[in-house]
């Protein structure tokens, strides 16, 4: 899959801009604050319908404008050409058109465009709270099997409703609240268990890929497997339904759901020690890269063609060995590398574009 043309209107600092892209490596060069990341953020929005910077839609609309438009032409491996138009609005719903046809649900777009984004914030995958790792796993799930997006949002919806009910209870478990809670618990148990199952399945597929990627990036011997990745929430062994009923009094008193898939974590370890607390900064960075690389490869094998690879300002943070190793181990399709300075020699860009103040100049 190749993104051939991208057009932005009122997106971030771009009033109106367009760029023609080709297969191979494109370097996106510009000083800080000129719009390099904004450009690749627009691309990844088409893949995930959210910002990889984790900001609300509103932040992506140019100050002073009401709507932002991202328009892209992509070509699939089989030669099929698709025109995608996404309209982001401050109020109301975001619209998506594929070949000028309006999509009933914008999430039907998932799977049409695929991107893998590496950014300096990836270090959060190892260092931050469990939610970051949970989202990483769920994003991988949806990228690989878009239908699971519905499952994730159903679980989220049921949790919101259940928490609203718990807050209404005012800390007292009346018989009325109890019978109503019964049905919300049953709904949460059904969908939560499904989500746990697919997360476990996803992790099982990812683990060998992460282990392999880490060994390659850290240039270790092939027979070593220092990385561990465990997804074993307690509720999955006891059953979510049982855990929910055991925690009921606690939940009512606190006014929130204390057990369930929304509190899961993935424990990452290097040489048997927790990566968050025991690994060096360099090891953590390598592990974060290995996680992204693993998803990228898994999608490439399962889908049959590599997602568009976006390296947002990451090469500058790696030593020459690691950046060379990273570029060497990618199944390369279309690649965009943003950088404030000159790229390392190993990057071999086929094309360069220069960004300044929201305008794009192609070489």
């Amino acid at each position, binding site marked *: 899959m190749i993104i051939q043309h991208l057009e932005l209107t009122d997106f971030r600092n771009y009033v109106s801009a367009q760029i023609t892209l080709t297969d191979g490596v494109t370097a996106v060069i510009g000083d800080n604050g000129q719009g390099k990341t904004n450009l690749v953020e627009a691309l990844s929005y088409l893949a995930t319908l959210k910002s990889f910077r984790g900001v609300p839609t509103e932040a992506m609309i140019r100050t002073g404008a009401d709507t932002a438009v991202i328009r892209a032409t992509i070509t699939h491996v089989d030669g099929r050409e698709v025109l995608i138009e996404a309209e982001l609005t401050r109020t*109301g719903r975001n619209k998506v058109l594929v070949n000028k046809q309006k999509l009933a*649900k914008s999430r*039907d777009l998932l799977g049409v465009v695929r991107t893998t984004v590496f950014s300096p914030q990836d270090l959060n995958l190892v260092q931050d709270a469990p939610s970051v790792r949970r989202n990483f796993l769920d994003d991988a799930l949806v990228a690989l099997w878009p*239908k699971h997006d*519905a499952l994730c949002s*159903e679980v989220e*919806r*049921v949790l*919101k*409703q*259940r928490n*609203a*009910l718990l807050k*209404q209870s005012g800390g007292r478990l009346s018989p*009325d609240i109890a*019978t*109503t809670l*019964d*049905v*919300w618990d*049953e*709904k949460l148990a059904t969908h939560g268990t499904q989500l746990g199952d697919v997360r476990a399945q996803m992790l099982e597929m990812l683990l060998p890929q992460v282990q392999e990627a880490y060994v390659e990036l850290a240039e270790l011997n092939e027979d070593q497997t220092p990385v561990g990745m465990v997804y074993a929430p307690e509720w999955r062994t006891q059953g979510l339904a049982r855990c929910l009923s055991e925690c009921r009094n606690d939940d009512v008193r606190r006014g929130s759901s204390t057990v369930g898939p929304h509190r899961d974590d993935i424990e990452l370890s290097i040489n048997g020690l927790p990566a968050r607390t025991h690994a060096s900064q360099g090891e953590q960075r390598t592990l974060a890269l290995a996680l992204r690389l693993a998803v990228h490869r898994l999608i490439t094998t399962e889908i049959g063609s590599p997602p568009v690879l976006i390296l947002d300002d990451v090469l500058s943070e790696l030593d020459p060995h690691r950046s060379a190793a990273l570029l060497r181990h990618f199944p390369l399709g279309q690649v965009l590398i943003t950088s404030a300075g000159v790229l390392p020699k190993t990057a071999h860009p086929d094309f360069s574009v220069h960004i300044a103040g929201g305008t794009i100049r192609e070489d």
Partner: protein
Amino acid sequence: MNSAYTPPMQALIDALGRLPGVGPKGAQRIAFHLLKSDSVDVERLAHSITEAKALVRFCDHCFNFSDGPICRICDDDRRDSSMLCVVEESRDVIAIEKTGEFRGRYHVLLGAMNPLEGIGPEQLKIRELLARLDTEGVKEVILCTNPNTEGDVTAMYLARLLKPLGLRITRIASGLPVGGDLEYADELTLGRALEGRREMPG
């Protein structure tokens, strides 16, 4: 904010904009249309709104919209009282009536369980539903709430409540639209349709 419209016009646009399915642009369009129209037509519209609001009420039995204390369906002796179809809103009654497939009676809950909007079982017409089951000889309750999170939970709640009464409790099936193609169905619908598959007579 300084409005570009005269105050009465702005008030009209604001009022129209509060209607479901009408956005700011739509409200403006309707307002312009009304002000250009014949005053007879406009008065007829205003009259039909106030009259409908004054005369239409909820049926005492089933909480469907009605022009009297008892709605036409509840008042119809040819209807089969042993089957009761439970729906969220009056518009669902109309949708099912249009099929012509159902000759039983209805009960409108006036919503679905939705804690985020402060709607629990007490806010729905569930107590009234239980009272009807005692007196009307109902044998089967068909739960026709919407196939979404809130509708499903409401159906589950009612099923738990009604099962012990020894009635037959059924849930409307979810599945594929008739005349459609399998390949265009979304995964969720197709999944549910597979779950609810039926054995073919040989």
